[in-house]
């Protein structure tokens, strides 16, 4: 465990922990002339759920989208700095962006299932990446993914029904099943529960807790309680800078920065 990492993550050394899954060093993002992310460095671990918090427009979603290069699809967006997945630069020419996005899956703010059947929604990723060798294989992947996302018992009798016919919370869990069907290493979640009611939100949070350890999970949220409940690490962003990053317990009980304290206690944001 390097000294540098301890400094960045700001946590006590722990012998049983794995090396960081993703590392970001001095990442800058520009949208045209707007400097949206100003030199963010961070390690993301397999062992934790990492929460990004901060007021609207602080750059947390933008930084999240850097991690699987979804910002490539936005016109006029420029990313600088080094982001590594397992020590490999994700911007290197040898890194295939299609494979990167399979390894670093994403769940969006608004549930966005394909207007196809539930089965097709989950089977799409494995199919385009050729992960299943036979129909039985594919059936198995679909079932496993739906079980892991806690949706199997609710939909097993209607896999051919349209994914868009499900309730909002079910749709979001279907999107999570779709993301984990390609067996990613990291799952990025951009405010996954912001469009859901409290009961559906609770289910998503339970699910995140169950998935912890198997995947490195990064979640952007506006909900302080949610960040406190589901995450072990919290990053507070403000005006494009990473203000504070550390153990969730420390951030919420004993923040080092005044801005963090003000935001968490509701002074602004």
């Amino acid at each position: 465990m390097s000294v540098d990492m301890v400094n960045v993550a700001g946590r006590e050394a722990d012998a049983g922990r794995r090396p960081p899954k993703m590392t970001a060093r001095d990442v800058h993002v520009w949208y045209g002339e707007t400097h949206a992310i100003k030199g963010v460095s961070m390690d993301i671990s397999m062992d934790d759920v990492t929460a990004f918090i901060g007021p609207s427009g602080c750059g947390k979603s933008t930084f999240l989208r850097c991690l699987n290069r979804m910002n490539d699809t936005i016109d006029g967006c420029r990313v600088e700095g080094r982001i590594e997945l397992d020590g490999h630069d994700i911007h290197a020419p040898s890194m295939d962006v299609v494979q990167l996005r399979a390894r670093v899956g994403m769940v969006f703010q608004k549930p966005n299932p394909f207007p196809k059947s539930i089965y097709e929604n989950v089977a799409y990723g494995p199919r385009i990446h050729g992960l299943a060798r036979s129909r039985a294989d594919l059936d198995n992947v679909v079932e496993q993914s739906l079980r892991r996302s806690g949706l199997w018992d609710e939909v097993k009798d209607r896999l051919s029904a349209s994914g868009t016919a499900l309730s909002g919370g079910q749709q979001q869990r279907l999107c999570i099943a779709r993301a984990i069907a390609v067996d990613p290493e990291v799952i990025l979640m951009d405010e996954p529960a912001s469009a859901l009611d409290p009961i559906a939100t609770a289910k998503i949070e339970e699910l995140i807790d169950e998935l912890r350890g198997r995947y490195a999970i990064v979640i952007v949220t506006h909900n302080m309680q949610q960040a406190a409940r589901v995450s072990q690490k919290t990053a507070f962003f403000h005006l494009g800078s990473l203000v504070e990053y550390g153990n969730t317990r420390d951030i919420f009980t004993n923040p080092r920065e005044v801005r963090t304290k003000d935001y968490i206690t509701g002074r602004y944001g």
Partner: protein
Amino acid sequence: MSEALTAAAPAHGRAAPTEWGSREMQGRLRRRYAAEQRFRLMGIGAFLVAAGFLVILLVTIVSAGWNSFRSAEVQVPVVLDPVTLGVAPDERDPERLARADFQAAVAESAARAGLPPFVVSDGGWLAVRERLASDPSLLGQTVPMWLTAQSHIDLLAKGAFDLESDESERAVSDLEVETFRALKAEGKLRLVLNRHFLFGADSVDPELAGIWGALKGSFLVLVVTLALSFPVGVFAAIYLEEFAPRNRWTDMVEVSINNLAAVPSIIFGLLGLAVFLNTFNMPRSAPVVGGLTLALMTLPVIVVSARAALKAVPPSIRDAALGVGASPVQVVFHHVLPLAFPGVLTGTIIGLARALGETAPLLMIGMRAFITSVPQGFTDPATVLPVQVFIWSDNVQRGFVEKTSGAIIVLLLFLLLMNSVAIFLRNRLEVRW
């Protein structure tokens, strides 16, 4: 501030603005409802005017055109004399029988029956040939047959002329009217389905002119247009909308396409003349050239509407597909295009419907030639429905008036069929959310 307002209001003898039951409020409400009522009446009025014009148009065309679907036939005892026909008395070879001089036989038979030469059509012998081909043993006998009547007798049978008016004021002579009356009284005149019109091509004689040649020409032209403009238009739209960078060049391309969609169609005709006929020496009057020319005209329409349909697909679907690692091409072909397809199809049909009704560019590439045979392929000389309407409407012969309207009916039916297929396909492909 608010205290001052509430204090001032009663002093002026006026109700406060929020007093919902006041007389002023009631008046405002009444005026609002009156305005809505007026607006609705205006809408209904506009709709009724539009529907009225449509009804007038359809009624006029159908009443003028439906007669072209039937034709008059005269009964003539045809003498199948081998000498007049110019064949051996016991000839049974179908080829030689088909080449017999039926025109002479019909002319002689008509004269022998005391019919003036203007009764039986120049194409009346066709029925005789058909009859003899099906039964060669009739050779040498005298058989009563129904032969196509000439245009004026045909029109008289359909009641197209005012017979009470003076001879100088109508297109038919008194002799023709008398002959018609005599034939009718003897029961030697009947109205049947007009096979010449339904299955034939253009002719100098109105009673023999047919629409099938133009219909098939239109069909062949549209096949070429669709085969060329649909794939090229859709792929161009996909490239511009999904893959092309946004810069000055693509902006210029976009403006040019929008302008092309508004270029008068005759310009495309001149382009087709200069490029396809003069430079590439392609066959004149051929459906393939017509199709190419109309494809040029239809292309921008398809590109513009396909881009609009692609743009209407929610970006969240693109994100979702990219998020599981789909490549940009997979995103387009697995997700965006299927969702946009009903819209793309609608645009294509609008473009094709415009191509179907187009006359001017086809005049430039020689498709207004007088063509008396049905085209058998893409390189045969052909004409198309709107050009046929144009040619017939220009003809001085009275018999072509109803043919013009008949051709319009066929054109409208063709259009209706095409749109029905498109609506059917669109409803089948539409994805329910």
